[in-house]
């Protein structure tokens, strides 16, 4: 696994390493050659690992006090908030931690989109990432059901009912998911079980994600293949460890702000009302991180097609390495793609906004246009752009534009305009 031959210094270390090469693994991770031009957008991988560990640790402690029963779940959450020592803190870390996790994952995904990290030879890393993202959404959704408030109950009802759109077997599947004829106690207990399981599945996939990353090595802001190790790389430790650590501290300041100053701003007041199967809250919306997909669901007037559109919006990402036909990875050298990239960012933000608004009038019209554009970007813009776009010349190495020698970035651009 290690790029260089590694032999432990001590006799015991050598004896152990010959039987289980953990020290070789540690040496590989320490020396792992990393592009020296990685910017702060590359620190979110480490931040995401921190988020996952935080959710697992706080989740385990919450599970010691939570009771997964329709009659007691709501009360047990209040018990955690009022009676359990530091229960309020642990729960606020866990509930805001979900939002922080998604904030970090969206930055991580959009970083990949900007610098073309999903392209060959990193398709498998990308697809594992999409699976992790899907599992995160499942875990977040089921976790939101556990407090058994009004939003929990009706969110669960609406999302599970998405499966009823499947022709013929849909109703049977929904009854099977519920374990009854509506969302009720059997639904709650199985959601709790799965909510407990999924983070460990994610953990396993994260190991594969990093393993697959360590085969070709990191992409970088210039987006070119580099020789490893070379003048273009630095060892992971201490260079990247320190940089990741600093970024993590900045991230934790934002995290702490939410926990201590506005712990409920990202939630809904309705979820502090206990679940009532007879009354639907006037305005059902999912958590902020699912809003763009919710907007896509609502923008299609047909039930089945709405569900298909929503799922396609996520699954289309898995095909991205083949939809983007450009050989150049980084948007830095793709003047047109760079503009379309920012339009896509705006489009997703608009979808998120209209997803939070009532599905009527102008909002509905905007949601439909934004939905159409979302698919247009992936199905038309990206394939065509790769064939038509005139890209800028890329440097031959990372060192070249920094330590002199032609062509550097600026002169390359000028040269282009002289032609």
């Amino acid at each position, binding site marked *: 696994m290690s790029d260089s031959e590694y032999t432990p210094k001590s006799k015991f270390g050598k004896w152990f390493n010959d039987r289980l090469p953990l020290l070789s693994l540690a040496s590989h991770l320490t020396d792992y050659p990393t592009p020296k031009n990685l910017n702060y957008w590359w620190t979110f991988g480490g931040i995401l690992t921190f988020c996952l560990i935080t959710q697992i640790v706080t989740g385990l402690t919450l599970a010691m006090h939570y009771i997964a029963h329709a009659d007691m779940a709501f009360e047990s959450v209040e018990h955690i908030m009022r009676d359990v020592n530091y229960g309020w803190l642990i729960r606020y870390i866990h509930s805001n931690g979900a939002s922080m996790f998604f904030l970090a994952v969206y930055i991580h995904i959009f970083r990949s989109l900007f610098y073309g990290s999903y392209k060959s030879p990193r398709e498998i890393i990308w697809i594992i990432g999409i699976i992790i993202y899907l599992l995160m959404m499942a875990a977040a959704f089921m976790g939101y059901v556990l407090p058994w408030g009004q939003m929990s109950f*009706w969110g669960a*009802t*609406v*999302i*599970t*009912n*998405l499966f*009823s759109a499947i022709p013929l077997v849909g109703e049977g599947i929904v*009854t*099977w*998911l*519920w*374990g*009854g*004829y*509506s*969302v*009720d106690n*059997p639904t709650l207990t*199985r959601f709790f079980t799965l909510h407990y399981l999924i983070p460990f599945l994610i953990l396993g996939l994260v190991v594969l994600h990093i393993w697959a990353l360590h085969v070709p090595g990191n992409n970088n802001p210039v987006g070119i293949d580099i020789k490893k190790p070379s003048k273009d790389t630095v060892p992971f430790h201490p260079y990247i460890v320190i940089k990741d650590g600093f970024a993590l501290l900045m991230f934790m300041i934002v995290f702490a702000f939410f926990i201590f100053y506005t712990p409920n701003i990202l939630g809904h007041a309705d979820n502090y009302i206990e679940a009532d*199967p*007879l*009354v*639907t*809250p*006037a*305005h*059902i919306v999912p958590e902020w991180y699912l809003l763009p997909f919710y907007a896509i669901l*609502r923008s*299609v*007037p*047909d*039930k*089945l097609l*709405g569900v298909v559109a929503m799922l396609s919006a996520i699954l289309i990402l898995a095909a991205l390495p083949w939809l983007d036909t450009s050989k150049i990875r980084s948007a830095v050298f793709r003047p047109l793609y760079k503009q379309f990239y920012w339009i896509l960012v705006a489009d997703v933000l608009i979808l998120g906004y209209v997803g939070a608004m*009532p*599905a*009527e009038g102008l909002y509905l019209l905007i949601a439909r246009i934004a939905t159409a554009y979302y698919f247009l970007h992936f199905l038309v813009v990206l394939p065509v752009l790769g064939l038509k776009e005139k890209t800028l010349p890329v440097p031959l190495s990372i060192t070249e534009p920094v330590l002199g020698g032609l062509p550097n970035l600026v002169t390359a651009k000028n040269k282009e305009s002289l032609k």
Partner: protein
Amino acid sequence: MAEKKTNRRDFLFTATYAVGAVGVGATVWPMIDQMNPDASVKALASTEVDVSSLNPGNTITVLWRGKPVFIRRRTEEEIAEAKSVKMEELKDPEKDEDRAKNPEWLVMLGVCTHLGCVPLNDKGDYNGWFCPCHGSHYDISGRIRKGPAPTNMEVPKYEFVNANTIKIG
């Protein structure tokens, strides 16, 4: 090498796979079926409701199998309105007579056929019900008129046990 022929060993492999597949299926099925409604859930199949205090133009909501059921005592005007709708105007054509055997009483699941929210009474563009979740409008017969819901609100199996009592289920 000699040409490939089906021999004893191929037969044994195929037979082993087949028996293995049956074994896996028989082991997995209980794991899947345990998630279906259990005996205690199925036992709560019917509910009796006293409707003697319900005035014309009013609706009550009762719980049946964990789901809300709307029972509306309709006025003469509402019945006339429900019957006057032309079938061509409906997304899921169904006569009012087929939905309410006794036109004065409309009994249906108060569950939007889109994604399962509970529609609101006396709201919407058709003087019936309106679902706040994704904007489906139902008429006074509970038929879908506008919005994403694909079908009319479902009429459950029910009967009048006597003049004042409806048995649902």
